[in-house]
């Protein structure tokens, strides 16, 4: 009894609900699936599908090939760059000087030859020569002395056939010591020309 009594209002509500639905367009959220299912999506023909698939495959293949080429080029470029870098590192070694001197020492001449060879083998490379001094001179005199050391190295390299346009010079005097210690060994290290790629 109780069950039947409860069913009656439910039936009424359902009936009313259907009646309402028939009279008015159902609001979208109430029946989400309905409009999509009813939308007349044009069914693709088999020929079109095949064409598109072929195009897609061709495009993917081209892209993969291009990517592989790019990777190969990049790898080659990196290898070249690495070789250039390691060659530069191997060649661009500091040369050192006696106190208050700017003469190229015999022991440093092979180093300058290696720099000249590197520049001849890498025609696009340009270097800057920085002349430096130890801390035991005056600030201003050392700037001039660093200038002279940089030019001494520059002149030696042009003497080995390097064109002047590929060499620039600068002097830091005693303003940028390579090592901060204060003994004979450090002073010799700090009396130098440093060569850097531009």
């Amino acid at each position, binding site marked *: 009894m109780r069950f039947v009594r409860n069913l009656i209002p439910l039936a009424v509500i359902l009936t009313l609900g259907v009646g309402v639905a028939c009279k008015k367009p159902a609001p979208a959220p109430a029946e989400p699936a309905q409009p999509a299912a009813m939308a007349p999506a044009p069914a693709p023909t088999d020929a079109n599908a095949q064409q598109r698939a072929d195009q897609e495959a061709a495009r993917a293949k081209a892209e993969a090939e291009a990517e592989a080429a790019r990777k190969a080029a990049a790898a080659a470029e990196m290898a070249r760059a690495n070789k250039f870098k390691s060659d530069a590192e191997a060649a661009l070694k500091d040369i050192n000087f006696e106190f*208050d001197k700017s003469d190229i020492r015999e022991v440093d001449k092979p180093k300058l030859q290696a720099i000249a060879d590197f520049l001849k083998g890498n025609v696009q490379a340009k270097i800057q020569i920085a002349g430096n001094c130890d801390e*035991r*001179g005056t*600030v*201003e005199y050392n700037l001039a002395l660093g*200038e002279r050391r940089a030019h001494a190295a520059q002149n030696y390299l042009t003497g080995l056939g390097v064109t002047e346009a590929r060499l620039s010079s600068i002097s830091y005097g005693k303003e940028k010591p390579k090592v*901060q210690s204060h003994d004979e060994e450090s002073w010799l290290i700090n009396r130098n020309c440093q060569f850097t790629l531009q």
Partner: protein
Amino acid sequence: MQKLVLGLLLVLAPLLHAQAPPNQEVVLTASAGSKLGVALSQPRIAGVPEATVAKDYQEVLNRDLEEAGPFAVIRKDLPAATDPASYPAWAATGTEWLLTSAISRSDRGDLEVMIQVVDVVAAQAKNAKAVVSKLYTSKDGSRDGALRRIAHKISDDLMARLTGEQGVASTRIVFVREGGRGIKDIWQVDRDGANARPLTAFKSLTISPAVAADGRLAYVTYKGGAPEIWGQRVPGGPQVKLFPPSGKAEGHCFCPSWSPDGKRLALVQGDRRGNTDIVVLEMESGRVRRLTDSNCINTDPSWNPAGNQLAFTSDREGGPQVFLMGDDGSNVRRLTQEGTYNGSPAWSPMGSMIAYVSRFEGKFDLFVYKLGEGKSYQITTGLASSESPAWSPDEHRIVFTSGSRGGMQLYTTDLSGNTLRKLIDLDGCQSPKWTRSH
């Protein structure tokens, strides 16, 4: 000179705008060994914190006077009273000059300091004189350091009153300070070590400052890669490139030095062979004149006060030595004869001396060459290396750098080398220049 009207002075202080007349007679010529005792009474204060007065006035003025040279500052057992009846008590402490001050802030906010200096010894002999009676006003009285600047000015005026020579308490020192590896900037500090602050911040290598008499800076900076001369074309103006002109490929430039009239800038220019020469740039026309042209190093130009000669360092005869020449490059002659490494010449402000450094056993000491005598005198002898001398504007002291390797600090010394003072506790300093300009 004003008659001393004691007792009324402090009351009337704001009304007395008495300025010391020019060309006042000098009351005492200081001689070695006899210093004049001077004491500050407790200032009367209105509208300024007592702690500020103690720190920025009493402490500063006492130290300025003490370091001026001819004064002995009396600090112990000072009487509280300042009326004529107290003069014997002041005199008993060793005081000769009693300095009373009234410090106040005016309605407009200006800082006002009225001072009276009484010769308490002469006053007892019924010969009372106000040695100095003067009002100091600072329009920017709210700014930090206004009271300090007045204290410095008072010290300089008392010095002038005593010796006829302007003191150097109001001066400052411009120098280079290392701010990290490969980074240096131009700094400044007051003569008493206060107000240390950077004047450039290029995060680059910036060195070799020069200051013109009107305060214009010139220096070398690597901020564009190669070293160029930068600085100011007008006092207080923006910092711009002074040399070389844009677009011109010139050799590297170092070591600017203003002529005494500030119209010319001597500087050092490298050539294609690695030699360096001294050239003079005329600021207005931009014209450049080469003074040296030899197959060697020429650097460190320093003008004589007349602006018609320069001292410089050259290795034309082997090692570095100090030479002199005319401002047209003529009449070159060697100044230093002893030692294998002499450099950093600094021509004294009155012109009769040249300070320089000489290297011996791996370290530098300061020397002064007296042109009249044709002789050199050694100023410093120490374990540390002493470098980069520059004269105080009154020619009594030399500022320089000294210290252990890598830890160079700023010091000043008198010419006897007896009163050596550390200017400020700051590492990594170089190339000081001493100037009256602000």
